[in-house]
């Protein structure tokens, strides 16, 4: 039983860090700031949550603390990425040529 749990935990660890790897890859490959924020925060949040779940399987006694870490990450990551994206938009960061829709700018133009 514990053997099975260990193997599940290890596989979850590998899956989580693979998502971290994809996040890092997206950070390097994406063309502009906003796409990088997407790649950098969503993928790494999922990756860290999977890693924490894997660590919980490996060491069930640490479950409460790992759960708290995951909860705090879920609270704070969207906040920081939204504030950063808005700051980048306000400070006029360059958009990629493929970007065709910018709802925030339309909104700001509608109500001055």
């Amino acid at each position, binding site marked *: 039983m514990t053997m099975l749990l*260990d*193997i599940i*935990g*290890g*596989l979850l*660890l*590998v899956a*989580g*860090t*693979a998502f*971290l*790897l994809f*996040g*890092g*890859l997206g*950070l*390097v490959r994406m063309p502009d*700031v906003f796409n*990088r*924020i997407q790649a*950098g*925060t969503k993928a*790494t*949040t999922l*990756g*860290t949550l999977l*890693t*924490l779940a*894997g*660590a919980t399987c*490996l*060491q069930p*006694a*640490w479950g409460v*603390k*790992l759960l*708290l*870490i995951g909860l*705090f*990450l879920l609270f*704070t*990551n969207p*906040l*920081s*990425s939204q*504030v*950063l994206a*808005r*700051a*980048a938009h*306000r*400070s006029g*960061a*360059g958009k990629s040529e493929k970007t065709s829709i910018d709802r925030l700018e339309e909104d700001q133009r509608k109500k001055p």
Partner: protein
Amino acid sequence: MVDWLIHLAALFAGVAFLLALTRFIKGPSAADRVVAFDVLTIISITGIVLAALTEGRGIYLDVALVYALLSFLGVIVVARYLEGGF
């Protein structure tokens, strides 16, 4: 078996660390570097959890707890600076 999987996970996390570091060094604007900094913090949390697993010491997780709750403050500080918020 489990040790091997943990080593593979550490390898993946190390490669992700290096990729985010590339963006931190290369990033044309300050906002790019802040995103890379955020990702580096999150990868560090994973690294701390992996270190706690290999050493078997649960008290290391307190540092990860502090980072999970406080790391967004640095990003918000830089964002507010970029938009002239203080």
